[in-house]
């Protein structure tokens, strides 16, 4: 279960170069003043939300709306500016079409690195490494440095590792369309497996067909930072209309 209360995240725009140690030391008052004057960008504004256990929760919205920021906040990789997020259960994140890999290391080393950071035991990884590479269809690339992998290969490997991390909450940011059709089918099978195991799955997607088919609830984030929460499949056929008119929608859960 995830409980989000009054969540706000802002970023500084940094349109002016202020990150100088010289200006900090020599003119710290002026530096502080200019730092305070930097314009901020609100990515998430005052969001209240509860995602219960076992729900397939989708987040959609136009580019730049703050979907990935929300995913990162839930995953805990970035901290909120204000508000809180309570997470009950281990989170397995899969963010920004990429994964925590070191491109100089070999595939197998990255399996160990990524695996332990996701909370998998080293002994387990040693025992199941062949399975992981077989799932990713990369059996012959275990010793190859990751820099020689294609982006599809990297994502397949990341997905294979993530499926071995026993979490309670899974976050997929535009990820279930990884690789070719054969691998996509594998991914979907894994997704169904997670759903049948009553895991909480958060999916960020623009794929309305997928959302209509699989989501229990949908959160639409608008560029004006309004949040529209809707149950599916009741609203499934209105998603397009919902997105285009969401700023006028009154179902804002934030205010």
């Amino acid at each position, binding site marked *: 279960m995830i409980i989000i209360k009054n969540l706000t995240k802002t*970023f500084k725009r940094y349109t002016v170069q202020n*990150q*100088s*140690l*010289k200006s*900090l030391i020599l003119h710290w008052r002026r530096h502080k003043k200019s730092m305070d004057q930097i314009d901020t960008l609100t990515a998430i504004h005052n969001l209240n939300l509860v995602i219960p256990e076992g729900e397939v929760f989708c987040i959609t919205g136009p580019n730049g709306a703050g979907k990935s920021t929300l995913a*990162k906040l839930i*995953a*805990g*990789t*970035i*901290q909120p500016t204000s508000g809180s997020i309570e997470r009950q259960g281990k*989170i397995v*994140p899969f*963010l*920004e079409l*990429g*994964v*925590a*890999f*070191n491109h*100089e*290391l070999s595939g197998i*080393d990255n399996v*160990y*690195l*990524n695996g*332990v*950071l*996701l*909370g998998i*035991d*080293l002994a387990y990884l040693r025992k199941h490494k062949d399975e992981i590479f077989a799932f990713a269809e990369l059996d012959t690339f275990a010793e190859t*440095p990751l820099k020689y992998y294609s982006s599809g290969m990297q994502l397949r490997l990341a997905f294979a590792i993530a499926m071995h991390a026993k979490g309670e909450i899974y976050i997929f940011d535009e990820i279930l369309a990884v690789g070719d059709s054969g691998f996509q089918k594998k991914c979907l099978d894994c997704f169904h497996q997670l759903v049948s195991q009553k895991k909480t799955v958060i999916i960020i997607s623009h794929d309305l067909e997928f959302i209509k088919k699989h989501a229990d609830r949908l959160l639409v984030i608008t560029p004006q930072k309004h949040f529209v929460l809707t149950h599916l499949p009741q609203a499934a056929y209105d998603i397009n209309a919902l997105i285009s008119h969401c700023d006028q929608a009154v179902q804002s859960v934030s205010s």
Partner: protein
Amino acid sequence: MISRFSKTHIFKTFEILLVLSYMDLKVKYRSSILGFFWSFIKPFLQFLVFYSIFARLLPIADGNDYALKLFFSILIWSWFSEATTLGLNAYIGKKSIISKIKTHKLYPPLAAYLTPTMNYCLNFIIFAAAYVCFMPAFPEHIFTWSNTLIFFVSLFSISLLIVALNMMLANLNVLYRDVLPIWELVLTYGMFLTPIIYRIPIPKHYEPLYYSINLLAFPLVNLKSIFFTSQPALFGDTAIVTGYCIGMVVLLVAAYYCYRKLSHRMVDFL
């Protein structure tokens, strides 16, 4: 829910640190023919350079045990400089990891400390062998309780110094990229302002101030006092010990403040 102090949590933390530091080591020596052996060869070559200059060309060498003293000091210096340089890049170098998986923000600076520490431990074995073979006059009372205590306390204080600096440098380097060239400069000066190649001629009344600023010098001199009788320990001098303790406390408070203030929003700047 696993408690922070449970065996499972401690084991998991240890496993993560071990893998992170081992991978750091692998990345460092990627595409290298000699690979991990550079860890041993580099301090030895550094020793040869300094020895040929300062013992042969310039008349700086003091005593018959100068070569061993120099080698020992270089090992400590390599440990310190390598660990802090790695620590400086602890977050920037692991950007792809930190921004995509929730990890404790102390792991990267700690891993940066562990990798050179493993190197140092292995190099220390080489020093011990060289010491037994080449020490002109083997000290009679080297394995006393007080020496053992000084040895471990000194190693602990160097470790504390490195971790505190890493906590500060890693965070500051994300915010201000000027930190890297500044730290390189500090290391260059530090090498010559620390009793590695020669004794620093500090007037007696400035010693407490010197040891409160140069926080590596105090443990280094004490470590040398164990192995080389010509080098007296500083533990008996109350003014120096007080100066060093004040310096250390100021650094630890600054490191903690820096870490608390910056680490939670550091990913926003990566």
